[in-house]
């Protein structure tokens, strides 16, 4: 009997041991590891939801929306921890989205941030979204997010400079979209909600901030002018090809600036494309003529990402330099006899035409290479480059200081001196616009400076930034980068020469006001046998401004491989007609 009682006491001790073991383990879990487990519990119950900020819009000066933000739907799945429910949700969702359940599995397994839903499908159409909403109860972990995506309502208008937004991380990656990304982005909203095991929200969000839409850009571009210039350029190029006058005339550019401010009013590149399909091969295949060569199909903007020899449009640099330095006077005449040799370099006028004795004005009007080669040889290359720099066309300053689009997307001019032993013949050739290469943007600034008397305004595209409520965030006034003190007399001579040049064109005859302009037919280097375009038509250029007396617009027309510069004047005339509202 004693043994019985003793054994019961032993059982009591066993009970106390059980208590000790349990409490010891509780202590370990709750006191030592407690904080960690509390974190796990919080991760269980909190979901982080993001409300994506709509990207800021881009407007033209006349209020047309060039880039907008349209809601698209993204279907995502939150972390589902119940095996059966997870499987059921995946099968259901796969059915609605018409994809393989395995594809969903794969996306879920690749998803790393467990507190955020994993994106299964983007750009889901509204129909499907409605169906999903109706059947939500079958898929407790379903999350439908609104993803505001970029849309370019004007499609191919200003497609190049607008650039592109990355669909996935929604960052601007090209053009204005990239350079102004900080403004355009906006601030995403977020909320932390408490969910139960079925992933259903319980109560109000614990913490939340609303999305702030990005700021809007207001450009200096007038879409009507842009449209008119684009249509004209496209039409003329097409006709030149159709009529067999210039078989390679596929590409070109128009730049229209306000010479009194530096505002870019139109900035056209051909061929253009629907910016909603920038890298969409199918779109390109369906919408771009099959016979268009690959070099033209590139996305390069031909106003600031492309440089070419500019031919005789350069002659005002040489002419003004000659007058300002005194190597020639306005009255001095030089004999232009069709062909000659200067500095051991053969020089001839267009079609070996004999112009006789010409002064500066006449030389500009008839575009005498012999005259400007002579002036150039008197100046020497150093002086010519000095004036290139004065006109904001130097290699050092990309596109005359245009910086609304990141400089690393811009091209600088080609300085022919680089890596070369300079000979007198080079000086002769650069005098009438060969060898060196410039961009249309540089030409725009150059002709603006001729029009406004030597003020170098920074070319600009973005005039104003407003926030989503319409309040102005930033306003950009015209900015003077440099001021040249060209003598009014010299300028007057050059301008008069340009006026005479313009007046001689059949396209510019019957205008109610005078116009200043200069053509350019840039030849290709035929001495270089490797040069693929050596036998192609010349690049056709025209630079000018209107009206002659009180310049309102400066125009640059560039048509690649389109032949004589005079062909570009047709585009210039269309622009003048449209801008000044003239009846043809």
């Amino acid at each position, binding site marked *: 009997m004693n043994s019985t009682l003793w054994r019961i006491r032993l059982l009591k001790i066993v009970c106390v041991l059980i208590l000790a073991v*349990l409490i010891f383990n509780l202590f370990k879990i709750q006191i030592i590891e407690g904080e960690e487990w509390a974190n796990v519990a919080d991760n269980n119950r909190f979901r982080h939801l993001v409300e994506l900020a709509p990207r800021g819009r881009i407007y033209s000066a006349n209020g047309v929306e060039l880039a907008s933000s349209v809601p698209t739907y993204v279907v995502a799945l939150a972390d589902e921890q119940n095996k059966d429910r997870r499987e059921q949700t995946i099968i259901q969702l796969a059915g609605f989205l018409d994809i393989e359940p395995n594809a969903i599995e794969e996306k879920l397994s690749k998803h790393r941030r467990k507190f955020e839903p994993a994106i299964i499908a983007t750009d889901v159409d509204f129909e499907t979204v409605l169906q999903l909403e109706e059947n939500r109860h079958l898929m407790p972990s379903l999350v439908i997010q609104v993803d505001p995506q970029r849309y370019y309502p004007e499609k191919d208008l200003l497609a190049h400079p607008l650039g592109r937004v990355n669909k996935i991380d929604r960052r601007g990656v090209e053009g204005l979209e990239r350079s102004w990304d900080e403004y355009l982005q906006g601030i995403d909203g977020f909320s932390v909600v408490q969910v139960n095991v079925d992933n259903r929200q319980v109560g109000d969000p614990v913490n939340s901030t609303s999305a702030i839409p990005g700021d809007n850009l207001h450009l200096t571009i007038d879409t009507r002018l842009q449209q008119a210039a684009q249509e004209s350029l496209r039409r003329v190029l097409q006709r030149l090809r159709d009529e067999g006058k210039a078989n390679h005339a596929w590409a070109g550019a128009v730049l229209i600036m306000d010479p009194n401010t530096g505002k870019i009013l139109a900035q056209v590149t051909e061929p253009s494309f629907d910016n909603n399909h920038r890298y969409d091969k199918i779109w390109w295949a369906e919408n771009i003529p099959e016979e268009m060569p690959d070099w033209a199909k590139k996305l390069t903007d031909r106003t600031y990402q492309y440089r070419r020899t500019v031919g005789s449009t350069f002659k005002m640099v040489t002419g003004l330099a000659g007058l300002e330095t005194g190597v020639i006077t306005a009255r001095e005449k030089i004999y232009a006899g069709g062909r000659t040799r200067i500095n051991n370099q053969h020089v001839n006028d267009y079609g070996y035409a004999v112009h006789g004795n010409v002064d500066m004005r006449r030389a500009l009007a008839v575009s005498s290479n012999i005259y400007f080669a002579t002036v150039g040889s008197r100046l020497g290359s150093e002086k010519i480059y000095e004036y290139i720099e004065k006109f904001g066309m130097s290699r050092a300053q990309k596109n005359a200081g245009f910086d609304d689009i990141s400089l690393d997307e811009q091209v600088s001019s080609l300085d022919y001196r680089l890596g070369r032993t300079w000979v007198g013949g080079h000086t002769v050739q650069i005098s009438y616009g060969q060898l060196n290469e410039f961009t249309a943007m540089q030409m725009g600034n150059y002709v603006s400076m001729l029009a406004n008397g030597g003020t170098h305004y920074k070319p600009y595209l973005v005039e104003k930034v407003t926030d989503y409520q319409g309040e102005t965030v930033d306003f950009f006034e015209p900015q003077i980068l440099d001021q040249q003190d060209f003598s009014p007399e010299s300028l007057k001579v050059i301008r008069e020469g340009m006026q005479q040049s313009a007046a001689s064109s059949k396209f510019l005859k019957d205008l109610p006001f005078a116009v200043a302009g200069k053509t350019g037919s840039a030849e290709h280097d035929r001495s270089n046998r490797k040069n693929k375009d050596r036998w192609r038509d010349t690049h056709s250029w025209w630079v000018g401004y209107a009206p002659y007396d009180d310049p309102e617009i400066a125009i640059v027309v560039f048509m690649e491989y389109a032949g004589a510069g005079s062909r570009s004047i047709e585009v210039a005339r269309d622009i003048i007609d449209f801008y000044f509202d003239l009846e043809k």
Partner: protein
Amino acid sequence: MGKKLWKSYDYILLLTIVAISFLGVIILGSSSVTGETSFATLFSSQTFIKQLLWVVIGLVGMAIFSLIDYSEWQRFKIPLYLFSLALLILVMVKGSSAWGAQRWLAIGKLKLQPSEPAKIAIILTLSATMAKEGRTLEKWKDLIVPLLHVGVPMIVIFRQPDLGTSLIFLAIAASILFVAGLRWIHLAVLSVAGAIGSVFAFLFLLKPYQKTRLIIFQDPWQDPYGYGWQIIQSKVAIGSGQFLGRGLFKGTQTQLDFLPAKNTDFIFSVIGEELGFMGASLFLLMYIFLITRILKIGLEAKDNFGRYICVGVAAMLAFQLLVNVGMTISIMPVTGLPLPLVSYGRSSFLTTMISLGLVLSVAAHSDTSIF
């Protein structure tokens, strides 16, 4: 019922039982009401009201059993044993199943789990057998009768399959035989045999799901959304309770349904989460006090029958406490044993109350007064 009965009635045990039961009901209420919970909203919970009702019914049942002289049960030894065995066999043939096991017997609208009352029957009948005049455990052959006595129902329950409950029978039998004077050498041999038998059973008798459930507690992360889910969520719940707990009705694991079986098998996790280390430890202390108090009554019982009953009931409660709480803190496998007096479930609650009624009867009918 003489004056003496009231004098020797163990009011402290009674008070402890009542305290644990009501604490259990409140915890159960907290875990079954979703959304904002307070004492007022508790009454909107069906589970809470039902369990409250069963606590009252259970207490009445316990009182009745405590007033009946436990000695009377000795006479019904054979019919009790046969009846419960019959029920267990019946459930095998005609029972309804849940969670892959056949454990329930439907009688009209009532659902009965015969393995629960069978526990009481085995405690009573084994105690009666061992308390029989002249029975000793000197020789190996003396063990045959008691081992068969427990072994038959145990195997039937094991085949349901209900591994946990069949092991309770083993705990009950082992404790009673131990107190009844099982020789150390026999205990050692049986233990070794049991160990070998367990390994054999694990390898050849268990179904794959039982095997997985048995081992998963050691590394629940190998299947965090399947078999490991309950174990992980329970540990998260208890751990996040930290020292003082998240507060009654405020456990996020409980209230947001991350914790499965929170009303039944994992009710202790709710205690751990909402009442913290302090609350859970106090609860365990109270529970162990209850068990040692039962053993104390066993020490002071007037005869061996009463003594064995107490030991059997104490063993039953201690084993379930260890396995159930151990399961919630990942030191024991998941066997689906409820926490007596606290987990939701009629059969289990009534069984526990009646067995405690028997213990109270032993105390009331002992010779020595406790006061």
